[in-house]
């Protein structure tokens, strides 16, 4: 009879009460393998035990939703019998420990989630957060993460069509690496992660199982501290070549009808895939781990069940079709191994050379895993941080200087150094490439296209989690609407600190409420997502960072617009109105080193009207370019519309009504929401303005495209007047400047 010490229970990240529940559920002391299985399945990462009660409140239904949360990825109907299958995943902790491999395996993982559903992945995006680039260690992490994303995505041949990058001290020891993937499937051929049909064969295919990543799932659920070094052998190395073979072979197998269900082995590896598939199918699964292909000698059942080796899939194959499936995998130089069967009775039974080493009801590991309603309390910092007295800041620097400093801020500056490393054109679908707004890919065989954007703003959420999260939803949706796409579904990745702290839990809960409220108002269902908690270093949490991944549908791919101005003489129209809001802005951060104030107000009705106007205006060929105002406000937005075009702009903007000393910077750099800079053929300006007014959207023709300067006047006075080439030069060199030697230097 084995015994389990308190210490062992603790090492497995299980609380006293949780262990007591295991004893009760099993009616006996667990075996070591069972203890390991419980520990990973009941970890925060796999069980969502702290977040589940909140996530349940998100709106997940909609007329296009084909698959909501609960499967490997969500799916929405995009017409013509097709579905867009998409999801976002975090790989934060692994990317800190080993940036290249951590990011690479993050990409690998989310791609598997998509093709597991029977969809061919056609686009990747990523949302990244780092500490300041002045820190050499941060630079190393940054370069490693970007190279890892490139290394995996490029090799497997899925274009990375967009993303975003933010910087803040709080991410220095805990970067965020969130990867989004979208694939296309036939709507009636979506494959699920189910095991059913007693006697059907369970197959293992892909890379061999090694000792890597053991405890990876529990690691992602524990705060970093000095002791985390002990857990470090848990680094997984990605093999994109293997994944490419798996991708092609699995899609081929799916076309045969031989498959009952399939799931990738991600976090918690074989454990998670077996019990989740069984649980979804209302069946049991019995496997013999001695049959699992192993990379190292002498692996124990515990290790095999918990290994997080990458590029592995679990399949349930209809009886009688085994040879057909094996043959397809052989063609791709993969060996599918029959490791078990589907059983009745709903238990996960693990054998080792025929001897039972674990026997657990699936439900105990999935539906009946612990769920906590953790205590919440408004954080103490909030009241103070929300106070912002502009007067106390002293006089602001001249607008021209602020403009230049903002263009040189890594958060605003061109990300070309990054996305040039990503193959963003492979598959020849990319209509809008990175740097030109939301990524847009066409759907071959149809007239349609899909726009995608990932957005989040940790500062806003830090200052008001409810509003900040709403703003993230609005920005992501607005970004896709700027291309002409109707937002039709979203996924989210919630990156927060330690949920056992009431103030963090409060941030989390409020942010989820905000996402829900905004999605309801904009009529956008959430079809899935990911939660990453314990993003802390030595007790200090990252800025609370919910990231929204938004998908929009464009009926006629030929109408797509980008952010760049199109032609000399076009009129520039500002949709929406500025209120001069500087709370949480890039301006305050860059110029005054502050994260303070209240985020911009958000009128969701106006936001919805604005997005409707954009979609209709683009479809009608009226709007020729569109770019939303985000970090850096109107002035930066205007500049970005000029960059990469050789076209300047000259505008006169109405001054906002704030303290006079700050009127200029608030007008130019304030980050009021629901604003978009569009361009329109000059003789159609009135048409657009009228359409806006009819839709209830403020609109003002503020100037025209052309010339070689960026000129912004306010109240009759020139505030900014910069040569386009100089501004573009500043903006385009920032990130590369941290990594590349200046040309000509010895």
């Amino acid at each position, binding site marked *: 009879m084995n015994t389990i010490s308190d210490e062992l229970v603790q090492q497995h990240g299980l609380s006293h009460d949780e262990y007591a529940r295991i004893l009760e559920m099993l009616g006996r002391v667990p075996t070591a393998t069972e203890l390991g299985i419980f520990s990973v399945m009941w970890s925060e990462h796999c069980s969502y035990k702290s977040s589940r009660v909140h996530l349940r409140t998100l709106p997940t239904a909609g007329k296009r939703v084909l698959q909501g949360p609960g499967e490997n990825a969500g799916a929405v109907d995009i017409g013509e019998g097709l579905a867009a299958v998409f999801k976002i995943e975090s790989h934060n902790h692994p990317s800190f420990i080993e940036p290249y491999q951590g990011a690479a395996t993050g990409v690998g993982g989310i791609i598997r989630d998509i093709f597991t559903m029977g969809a061919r992945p056609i686009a990747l995006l990523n949302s990244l957060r780092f500490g300041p680039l002045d820190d050499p260690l941060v630079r190393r992490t940054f370069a490693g993460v970007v190279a890892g994303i490139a290394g995996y995505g490029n090799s497997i041949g899925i274009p990375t069509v967009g993303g975003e990058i933010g910087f803040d001290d709080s991410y220095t020891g805990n970067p965020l690496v969130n990867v989004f993937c979208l694939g296309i499937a036939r709507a009636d051929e979506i494959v699920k992660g189910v095991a059913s049909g007693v006697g059907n064969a369970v197959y293992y295919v892909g890379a061999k199982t090694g*000792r*890597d990543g053991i405890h990876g799932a529990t690691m992602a659920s524990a705060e970093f501290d000095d002791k985390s070094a002990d857990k*470090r052998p848990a680094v997984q*190395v990605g093999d994109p070549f*293997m994944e490419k073979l798996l991708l092609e072979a699995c899609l081929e197998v799916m076309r045969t009808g031989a498959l009952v269900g399939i799931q990738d082995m991600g976090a918690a590896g074989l454990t998670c895939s077996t019990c989740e598939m069984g649980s979804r199918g209302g069946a049991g699964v019995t496997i013999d781990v001695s049959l699992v292909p192993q990379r190292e000698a002498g692996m124990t059942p515990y290790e095999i069940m918990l290994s997080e080796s990458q590029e592995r899939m679990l399949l349930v194959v209809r009886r009688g079709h085994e040879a057909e499936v094996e043959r397809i995998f052989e063609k791709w130089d993969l060996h599918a191994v029959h490791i078990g069967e589907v059983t009745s009775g709903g238990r996960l039974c693990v054998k080792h050379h025929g001897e039972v080493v674990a026997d657990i009801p699936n439900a105990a590991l999935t539906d009946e895993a612990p769920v906590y309603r953790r205590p919440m309390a408004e954080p103490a910092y909030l009241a103070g941080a929300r106070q912002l007295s502009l007067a106390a800041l002293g006089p602001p620097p001249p607008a021209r200087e602020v403009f230049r400093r903002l263009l040189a801020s890594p958060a605003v500056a061109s990300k070309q150094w990054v996305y040039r490393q990503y193959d963003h054109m492979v598959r020849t679908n990319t209509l809008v490439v990175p740097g030109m707004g939301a990524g847009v890919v066409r759907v071959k065989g149809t007239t349609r296209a899909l726009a995608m954007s990932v957005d989040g703003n940790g500062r806003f959420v830090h200052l008001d989690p409810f509003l900040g999260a709403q703003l993230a939803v609005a920005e992501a949706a607005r970004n896709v609407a700027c291309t002409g796409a109707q937002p039709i579904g979203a996924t989210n990745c919630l990156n927060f600190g330690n949920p056992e702290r009431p103030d963090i839990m409060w941030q989390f809960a409020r942010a989820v409420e905000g996402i829900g409220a905004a999605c309801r108002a904009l009529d956008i269902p959430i079809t899935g997502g990911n939660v990453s908690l314990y993003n802390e270093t030595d007790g200090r949490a990252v800025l609370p960072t919910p990231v929204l991944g938004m998908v929009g549908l464009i009926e006629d791919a030929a109408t797509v617009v980008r952010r760049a101005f199109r032609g000399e003489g076009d009129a520039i129209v500002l949709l929406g109105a500025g209120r001069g809001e500087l709370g949480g802005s890039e301006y305050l951060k860059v110029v005054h080193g502050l994260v303070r104030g209240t985020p911009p107000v958000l009128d969701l009705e106006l936001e919805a009207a604005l997005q409707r106007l954009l979609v209709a205006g683009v479809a009608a060929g009226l709007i020729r370019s569109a770019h939303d105002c985000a970090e850096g406000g109107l002035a930066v937005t205007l500049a970005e519309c000029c960059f990469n075009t050789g076209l300047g702009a000259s505008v006169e903007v109405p001054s906002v009504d704030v303290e006079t000393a700050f009127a200029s910077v608030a007008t130019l750099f304030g980050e009021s929401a629901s604003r978009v800079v569009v361009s329109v053929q000059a003789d159609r300006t009135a048409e657009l303005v009228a359409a806006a007014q009819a839709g209830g959207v403020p609109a003002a023709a503020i100037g025209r495209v052309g010339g070689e300067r960026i000129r912004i006047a306010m109240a009759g006075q020139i505030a900014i007047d910069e040569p386009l080439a100089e501004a573009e030069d500043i903006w385009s060199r920032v990130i590369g400047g941290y990594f590349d030697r200046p040309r000509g230097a010895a």
Partner: protein
Amino acid sequence: MRARVFVTLKPSVFDPQGTTVAEALHTLGYATVTDVRQGKYFELEIDARTPEEARRVAAEAADKLLANPVIESYRIEIDAGAGAAASAGVAR
């Protein structure tokens, strides 16, 4: 002085490149090659007076840049001069 630095993946770390090379060798008929591990190899020319000094510089370079301590280990050999025998390597 020349330092030769061999960087290899730690034994427990998966080596997809080595695995792929091994498979290719099998396809080519080299069945007796039972395992392949692929690593990196650096030759550093170091302006040092003593082999010890060269080794110290090479080790620092390896620690900071050439090897990734999370997944790799390295070994250094010093060629004191052209034609001189390699001094014994020190692994870490």
